[in-house]
C-alpha cells in the first residue's frame, strides 16, 4: 500500500502546483453557489416585491355595479382601468392591463334573488403579474362570498355554521424534518453522483491518459513500484478528488440554500425559525454516516471507470470521449432516481448505482431498509472491485501502455 500512497501523494503534489486548477476545483464552488443563490434570491425578491407593491390593472365590465365598488375599495390591490378597445386578449398580451373581469349584467338581481351569478376573468397564465391579478380577485371574491353567504343565512334565520358543516384540522405527523428529508433524499443522490463523477473526471484523465500523452507514465512504470500499486495510487487520487469535490460543492450548495431560505423565511414570516427543519434533516449523524458508507464504494466505482478508460486511451481526448458516455449514463440514472414513486419498483434494488440512490432516499425519509441497504452496498463494492481488477490488468497490457 506504501506505493499507492506515494503515487497518490505525487498526484496531489502535482495538483497543488497548478493554482488555476486548484482555484476551479476547490475555491470556485465555494464562491459560485452563494453568488448564484444570492443573486437569484435577490432578483426574485425584488421582482416579487415590485409586483406585490403594484396594484393590478384591471378592466371591469360590470353593468349592475356589483363587483366594481368592491374592487375600488382596495386601491392597493386593484387599479380599475377602462376596458380596452378591440381584442382583450391582445391587450393583456401587450401588457396594457393584467386582467379583464366581466360580471353578469343581471348580477345584482341574481344576488338579490339569492342565485349564483358568473364572473369571467380573462388573464395571461404565462405572465406573473397577470396571475397575481387573478389570485387577488379570487381572494377578494372568497372573502366577499363568505360575507354574502353569512348575510343570506341571517336572512333565512339559519345559524352561521350552516354553510360550514366541517372544520378540517391537519396535523403533520412527519414534521418538517421528514418533508425536508423527502426533498433531500430525492435530490442528494442526484447531486452527489453528478458532482463526484464530474469533479473527478478531468483529474482522472490528467493522471492516466494525460501522463501517457506527456510521456511521464513510462518513468513511473520503470521504477520498482508494482503496477497494481500505481493503479491503486491513481485510483485513490481520483476517488479522493471526487469525494472532496462533491463534499465542497454540497457544503457550499447547502449553506447557500440554507442562507437563502432563512432570508426568505425571515421576510415571509419573521417569527418562523430560519430553516432549522432542513438543518436537522441533514444533520442526523446516522443518516449522514450511512449515506457516506454508500457513497464511498460508489465514488470508487466512478473513479475506477475513469481510470480504466484513461489507462486504455491513447491520449486525453480519446479518454474524454470514452468517459463521456459513462457520464451521460450516470446523469440519466441520477435524473431517473429523482422521479417520484420509483421506490415502489420491485426490481430497482437489484440495479447497481440506482440502488444506491434508492437506499439514500429511504434513509432520508427514515424508511431505511437493512437488506436493501446491504444489497446496494455489497453490489457497489463488488462493482468497484471488478473495475479495480480490470484497471490493474489494463495497466499490465503492453498494448495499452505503448499506444501513444
Amino acid at each position: 500500500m506504501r506505493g499507492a500512497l506515494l503515487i497518490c501523494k505525487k498526484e496531489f503534489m502535482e495538483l497543488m502546483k497548478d493554482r488555476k486548477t486548484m482555484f476551479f476545483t476547490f475555491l470556485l464552488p465555494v464562491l459560485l453557489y452563494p453568488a448564484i443563490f444570492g443573486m437569484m434570491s435577490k432578483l426574485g425578491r425584488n421582482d416579487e416585491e415590485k409586483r406585490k407593491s403594484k396594484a393590478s390593472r384591471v378592466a371591469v365590465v360590470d353593468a349592475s355595479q356589483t363587483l366594481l365598488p368592491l374592487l375600488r375599495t382596495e386601491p392597493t390591490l386593484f387599479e380599475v382601468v377602462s376596458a380596452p378597445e378591440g381584442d382583450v386578449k391582445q391587450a393583456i398580451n401587450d401588457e396594457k392591463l393584467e386582467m379583464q373581469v366581466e360580471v353578469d349584467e343581471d348580477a345584482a338581481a341574481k344576488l338579490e334573488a339569492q342565485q349564483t351569478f358568473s364572473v369571467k376573468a380573462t388573464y395571461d397564465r404565462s405572465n406573473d403579474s397577470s396571475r397575481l391579478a387573478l389570485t387577488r380577485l379570487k381572494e377578494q371574491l372568497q372573502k366577499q362570498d363568505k360575507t354574502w353567504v353569512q348575510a343570506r343565512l341571517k336572512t333565512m334565520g339559519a345559524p352561521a355554521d350552516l354553510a360550514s358543516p366541517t372544520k378540517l384540522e391537519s396535523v403533520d405527523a412527519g414534521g418538517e424534518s421528514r418533508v425536508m428529508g423527502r426533498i433531500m433524499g430525492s435530490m442528494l443522490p442526484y447531486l452527489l453522483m453528478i458532482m463526484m463523477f464530474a469533479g473527478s473526471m478531468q483529474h482522472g484523465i490528467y493522471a492516466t491518459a494525460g501522463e501517457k500523452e506527456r510521456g511521464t507514465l513510462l518513468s513511473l512504470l520503470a521504477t520498482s513500484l508494482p503496477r497494481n500499486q500505481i493503479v491503486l495510487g491513481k485510483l485513490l487520487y481520483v476517488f479522493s478528488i471526487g469525494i472532496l469535490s462533491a463534499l465542497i460543492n454540497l457544503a457550499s450548495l447547502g449553506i447557500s440554500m440554507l442562507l437563502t431560505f432563512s432570508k426568505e423565511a425571515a421576510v415571509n414570516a419573521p417569527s418562523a425559525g430560519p430553516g432549522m427543519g432542513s438543518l436537522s434533516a441533514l444533520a442526523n449523524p446516522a443518516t449522514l454516516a450511512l449515506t457516506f458508507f454508500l457513497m464511498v464504494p460508489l465514488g470508487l466505482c466512478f473513479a475506477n471507470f475513469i481510470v480504466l478508460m484513461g489507462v486504455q486511451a491513447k491520449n486525453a481526448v480519446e479518454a474524454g470521449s470514452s468517459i463521456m458516455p459513462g457520464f451521460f449514463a450516470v446523469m440519466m440514472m441520477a435524473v431517473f432516481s429523482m422521479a417520484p414513486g420509483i421506490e415502489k419498483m420491485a426490481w430497482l434494488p437489484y440495479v447497481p448505482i440506482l440502488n444506491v440512490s434508492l437506499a439514500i432516499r429511504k434513509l432520508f425519509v427514515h424508511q431505511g431498509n437493512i437488506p436493501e441497504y446491504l444489497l446496494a452496498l455489497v453490489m457497489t463494492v463488488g462493482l468497484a472491485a471488478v473495475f479495480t481488477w480490470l484497471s490493474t490488468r489494463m495497466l499490465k497490457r503492453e498494448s495499452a501502455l505503448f499506444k501513444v
Partner: protein
Amino acid sequence: MIQLTDVYKTFTVKDKRTRAKKQVEAVKGLSLTVKPGEIYGLLGPNGAGKSTTLRMIAGLMQPNQGRIQVCGLDTVEQPEKARAKVGYLSTDLNVYGRFTPRELLRIFGEFQGLDAKVAERRGMYLMEKLQLDDFADVKMEGFSSGQKQKVSIARALLHDPKVVIFDEPTTGLDVLTAKTVLDLLRVMRAEGRTVIVSTHVMPMVEEICDRVGIIFDGLLYGDASPKQILDDWGVKTLDEVFFELAARSAAEV
C-alpha cells in the same frame, strides 16, 4: 550483469486498410551478455528492435519467449526486484513540468524505496555533477530538452542502480551536454556498473563502447568490440556495416 537468452518479442499490428491483424517479430532469438564495468552499444536503424530490447531489459515489456536476467533476477518472475536494480532512460520519457528537479528527484527517490531526505541529497549531488544545480528549484515546464534530459539522467541514477540502460541518451542534445553524458557513462563504467546504450551516433560508439551489437530486422550481429567488428566485416566505419546489412536484407526480399 545483464543476460538475455534466446529472447523473442512479437507484436500484433493491424493493417488500417485491410483491417487484418498480423504478427510482427521485433526481436528474433536474441542472446547476449553484458558484464559489470562494461559499456555495451546496441546499434541499429529505426524499427530494428533496439528500444524493444531495452524496454524488455528494463522490465517495461515481457518477452514472448526466452529469458532475461538482471543481476541474476528474472524480469518476468521478479519484475519489481529486477527493476530496482535498473536505471532506465529513454527519449520517450518526459519530466513532470509542474515540479522542480529537487521535488521530482525526492518523489522518485521515494518510489525507489529511498528516504525522502536521502533521495534529495543524492539527487542534488547528481544535479551538481550534471551542472544543473542552479536550476534545482525552478519549475521544469520551461526547461530545454538538454536540461530535461539531464534531470531524467539524475532520476534514472538516483537509486544507485547496478544496471544502467540508456536509450539514445544524446539525441537532441548539444555537443557540450552530450559530452557531459558521455563522461558520466565512463564514470559509471569505472564504478563497475553494467551499462547498455542504444544510439545512432557512430563516433560515440567507437569512443566509449567496449562491445557492440548491431540489431537488424530483429537479429543480432556483431557482439564484439568496435574494432573487431570493423575487421570482421572488412570495412572502415560502422555505418558501412549498416549499409552491408541493408543490402543483404534487400537481396533476401
